[in-house]
């Protein structure tokens, strides 16, 4: 058994007021289980529901009470079954009592593990905490919770509570909610419990840590304020990118009968002389060469070790400076955290005093760090105070790496004030922009901040793990589409858009954007596309609606603003044989782009207009196959990409394949053409 195995109990409120968020809860719990199946296969997991119609738990048998708490799955090593019991979760019919559920969960953990598994026992409560808890037999609810919390501490259990509120929470009695919040707060004060309130489905998906990583220190030792004043600290990573696991390469060579085949691919490196490719050079005859300009300098490892930079392991303070001296965009890497040595009161006080003094004076500290002995480099970074908001958590510092002189490229950019007036906003435009920035607000006062990094999950990871599950069920299944809730991370919130429609419209009206045709005329050398360095060519203002202009300016690209005109101009060019093909290809890409980039169908009319244009052109140019293939492809694409609504839109517009009657080269009969869209979309009826 793995030493770090964790025992996790999910306590899920499935009472009636929770029903609207259960799909998200199913999602996030599934991701958690899917990750455990890969990273911590020996972890043990149990699931308790409360607010259910039925009652099923040991305590009710032993002492009575604890109704509507149902053990959905006993604690056991994680497996695919957990996923099945989670999806779908049964909908409950009673208001759930989260305290009952916590006690049942603790009882299960105690019975199963006793005093073992210290610190690896975790309870995870997901509820809206809107339903009243029962009064205890004696004492107040507060007393009862205090006793439970102390017991939790004694058993070294951890608890996370995710409380669903706000927009997605149901109507509820404020008094009860306040009481419940007070009770849950006792847990975070008295024991190792975390409490998170979430107000949106996205935050709900992000609130539960789906991967349990045992953090390790990257440094333990002294923060040397001076050679005579040192503070004992530990350094951990605060952020680090969680990636898709590195997958192994697959080999299909093992015979199908071989049950123990690993199907892995091994990689082997061999070194050959450039001038004599048949001769292999054995490893001991190789020597490392370091580039210096065109030269490669050979140095053996031993020589290199003798001369390379060898700083001593240490963390030293260089001094303090004003916070505004260190701009945010100079932070180089993921972030570390400096915490005072746990249990060391002096260190905790020293860090606390410095952090609070820095916060008050708006200062930061500059430090020089060598994390390990033998590390060949130093880092210089900035410590910023992290004043604790909870009384059982000591103050600490965040650490960000700063760039060295070699890491900065000092490019010069023109001042905005030097730009010609035509590039600067007018007063009216500025006002429209001010309103836009003010109203397009993701963190309005009194509401939950939308998309806070701490509660926003990585949609790619979720999709990857779901894809594994889908493929496990059916190896030939396609990659599942992005979860609908998670898609909202990648697009603007429709609610926010519709609330501010007038501000947005005004903003849009204030700024006129035009494609730069002059630029398209110039063959640019690929290397010299240096934005503002390019001299503008002064051509008479091009009025693109007249034929005259179109003929004087040769269109080479289907642009964003007037794609149809561009396309028509291109296809009617007769100065080269390739323009028709090029125009059709460009137009196809444009249509794809429009459809794919559509928000709630807002680009569909434009895409359809383009389709009409390309269809017309393909008939005229006797290229029916080009169009028919494209339309088939597009419809298939839309189906796969969950863009069925576009196909419906096309059907409504009666856009069909090009039939024989329209173009003799077509292989499509009239009937076939007419039924095309309908057929590809059987759900339409």
């Amino acid at each position, binding site marked *: 058994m793995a030493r770090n195995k964790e025992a996790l109990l999910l306590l899920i409120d499935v009472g009636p007021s929770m029903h609207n968020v259960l799909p998200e809860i199913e999602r996030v719990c599934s991701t958690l289980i899917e990750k455990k*199946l890969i990273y911590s296969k020996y972890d043990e997991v149990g699931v308790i529901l409360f607010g259910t119609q039925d009652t099923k738990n040991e305590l009710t048998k032993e002492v009575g009470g604890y109704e509507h708490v149902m053990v959905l799955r006993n604690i056991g090593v994680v497996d695919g079954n957990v996923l099945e019991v989670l999806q779908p979760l049964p909908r409950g019919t009673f208001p759930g009592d989260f305290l009952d559920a916590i006690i049942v969960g603790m009882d299960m953990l105690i019975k199963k593990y006793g005093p073992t598994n210290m610190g690896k026992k975790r309870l995870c409560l997901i509820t809206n905490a809107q339903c009243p808890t029962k009064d205890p037999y004696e004492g107040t609810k507060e007393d009862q919770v205090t006793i439970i919390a102390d017991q939790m501490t004694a058993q070294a259990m951890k608890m996370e509570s995710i409380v669903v509120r706000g927009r997605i929470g149901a109507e509820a009695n404020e008094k009860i909610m306040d009481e419940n919040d007070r009770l849950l707060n006792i847990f975070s004060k008295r024991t*190792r419990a975390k409490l998170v309130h979430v107000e949106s489905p996205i935050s709900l998906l992000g609130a539960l840590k789906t991967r349990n990583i045992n953090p390790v220190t990257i440094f333990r030792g002294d923060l040397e*304020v*001076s050679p*005579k*004043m040192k503070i004992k600290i530990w350094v951990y990573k605060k*952020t680090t990118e*969680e990636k898709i696991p590195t997958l192994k*390469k*697959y*080999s299909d060579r*093992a015979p199908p009968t071989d049950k123990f085949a690993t199907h*892995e*691919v*091994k990689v082997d490196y061999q070194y050959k002389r450039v*001038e004599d490719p048949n001769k292999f*050079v054995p490893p001991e005859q190789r020597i490392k060469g*370091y580039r210096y300009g*065109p030269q490669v300098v*050979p140095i053996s490892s031993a020589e290199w070790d003798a001369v390379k*930079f060898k700083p001593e392991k240490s963390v030293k303070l*260089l001094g303090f400076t004003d916070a505004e001296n260190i701009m*945010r965009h100079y*932070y180089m*890497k993921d*972030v570390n955290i400096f915490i005072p040595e746990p249990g060391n009161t002096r260190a905790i006080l020293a860090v*606390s005093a410095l952090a609070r003094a820095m916060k008050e004076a708006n200062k930061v500290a500059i430090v020089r760090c060598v994390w390990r002995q033998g590390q060949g480099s*130093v880092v210089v970074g900035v410590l910023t105070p992290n004043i604790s908001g909870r*009384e059982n958590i*000591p103050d600490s510092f965040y650490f960000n790496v700063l760039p060295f*002189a070699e890491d900065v490229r*000092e*490019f010069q950019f023109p001042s*905005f004030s*030097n730009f010609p007036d*035509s*590039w*600067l*906003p007018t007063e009216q435009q500025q006002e429209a922009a001010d309103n*836009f920035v003010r109203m*397009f*607000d993701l963190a309005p006062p009194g509401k939950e901040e939308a*998309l806070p*990094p*701490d509660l926003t*999950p*990585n949609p790619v990871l979720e999709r*990857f793990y779901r894809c*594994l599950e889908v493929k*496990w069920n059916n190896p030939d299944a396609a*990659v599942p589409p*992005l979860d609908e809730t998670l898609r909202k991370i990648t697009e*603007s919130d429709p609610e926010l*858009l519709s609330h501010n429609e007038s501000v*947005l419209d005004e*903003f849009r009206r204030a*700024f006129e*954007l035009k494609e730069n045709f002059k630029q398209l005329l110039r063959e640019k050398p690929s*290397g010299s596309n240096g*934005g503002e360095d390019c001299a503008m060519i002064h051509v008479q203002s091009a009025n693109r609606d007249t034929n005259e202009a179109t003929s004087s300016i040769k269109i080479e690209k289907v642009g964003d603003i007037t794609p149809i005109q561009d396309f028509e101009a291109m296809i009617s060019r007769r100065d080269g044989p390739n323009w028709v093909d090029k125009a059709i290809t460009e137009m196809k890409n444009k249509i794809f782009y429009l459809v794919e980039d559509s928000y709630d169908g807002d680009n569909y009319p434009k895409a359809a207009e383009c389709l009409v244009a390309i269809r017309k052109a393909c008939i005229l140019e006797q290229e029916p196959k080009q169009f028919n293939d494209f339309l088939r492809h597009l419809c298939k694409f839309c189906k796969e990409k969950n863009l069925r609504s576009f196909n419906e839109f096309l059907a409504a517009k009666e856009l069909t394949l090009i039939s024989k009657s329209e173009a003799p080269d077509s292989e499509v009969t009239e009937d076939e053409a007419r039924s095309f869209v309908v057929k590809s979309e059987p759900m339409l009826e």
Partner: protein
Amino acid sequence: MMDLDPDDIFRDEDDDLGNEFYEKEATKELAVYLVDASPKMFSSTSPNEDGKDETHFDVALSCISQSLKTQIINRSYDEVAICFFNTREKKNLQDLNGVYLFNVADRDYLDRPTARLIKEFDLIEESFTKEIGSKYGIVSGSRENSLYNALWVAQALLRKGSVKTACKRMLLFTNEDDPFGSFKGASKIDMIRTTLQRAKDARDLGISIELLPLGRPEEEFNVSLFYADLIGLEGDELAQFIPSAGEKLEDMKDQLRKRMFKKRIVRKINFLIANGLSIELNTYALIRPTVPGAITWLDSVTNRALKAERSFFCADTGALLQESTKRIQIYKNETIKLSVDELSEIKRISTGNLRLLGFKPLSCLKDYHNLRPSTFLFPSDEDIIGSTRLFIAVHRSMLRLKRFGVAFYGSSSRPQLVALVAQEEIIIAGGQVEPPGMHMIYLPYSDDIRDIEELHSDSNGTAPCATDEQIKNAAALMKRIDLKDFSVCQFANPALQRHYAVLQALALEEDEIPDINDETVPDEEGMSRPGVVKSLEEFKLSVYGENYQEENGPGKAVDASKKRKAAAELAAKESAIHDWGELADNGKLKDLTVAQLKCYLTAHNLPVAGKKEALISRILTHMGK
């Protein structure tokens, strides 16, 4: 070659970021430095940092020297030529007067910089007068035109390579804003015309000519006299041209150095603002870690480069394979197959654009919301006119309202949320310190953030918190150790400096490796000033109390060795309890616990690894039984 090296020591996990992120520099740069060497360049002086006078010629040399050193580390594939004009001697392929191409052995005039070039260029001052010499090349009455000649020579050098794959530049250092000032009438018009025509021809070939004017506060370099036409500035661009004459010489050097780098655009992206409104942005990588170059394996016998060859084998059958496009992951005891295409499809959750989602107050951007170096955004009207205007309006509003933008950046390697922080232009002493624009900061997801604070939360009640008195002492100390003029990136990376110092010495076959100065060590002297020491003592007393003993003794023993010593002492004590000889003789060692056995081993400084039998046999061996 790089990605084929399995032993690449510098590429640890942390640096393994997507290629897309670290810009691929598809084009190489060919640059000719044209340095005016006329007597005027030597006569104009300004005091430098140390108060000594430095000529404009020295300034140009020092800028080039610094740029060469940066180039050999960062962009060693770029090629460079150094060309003096207004010289006494001549050296160029066209045999034109007044033009001298500087070079060293084993190198073409226009070629990659080498260690020798850098070294000899640094010494050029000593030999300049003797070997090259300064002399006006444009004198009234003569038809000689050294500027024309220099442009010709440079253009001839830059004929190399196609404009499609290379970016070609001439960088002209001069302090003469009116080179044909001494001419009159028709001859003046003629001289100017031919020179401008020469420059125009070069520009028409795709060569950009950039001017690095050296001026003085009392006599500003007037670009409109002649050079505006030479480098092709028109209308608005002329107004934007920065004459670059710093109050101090150092400032001017800084500005020139910045201008010597070609701004490289990493990508052009569409920034979707709302409802189909979209503008055009260029992204730049202003800050990226510089790492030592990759290793090349050599044959130690011949010192020639080796070619690495990668081959794939089936782990089950040993058969040689082609590179596979299928990947596997074990999941629920099954081997799940995914194609490379499917994997990239999983990551494709948005189009490659930057899509604005809204704005938040700057206080929402926490110090731990960071993963990678930021990317700089600057608007462009190249394809969509009006982009710059809209960008500036939003930029100003964001600064005024103290907000940052939140956007989704759909890159193919890692689509993620980003913060867009507006940066106001900052100009100090006439030089741009921070360009105006927006910085794109890559935000972590909840999966990337760890709850370290919770990890060690004190479960029994409250964690100590500093008193006002202690905070006051800390504040007093802070005032004492204040780095007033601290600027980010003021330090050179000592590891990198050392790395290249070693390489340079070896490349030039020098015996001694020069010492590099580690600028990152604390200022011990400053720390030992009485005022600092006093406030340190006060702070220490207030947080640590009176009877605080330094946990590490004055010997400053390393933690680990001290621990080991303590453990050995303890083990010796413990092991003394038993009569080991007797236990061994009676075969009773096996009755002891492993921990007890280990005490003996530790006490006698023997390895403690292995199973119980191994421990027993090791003890017996040690006792000679």
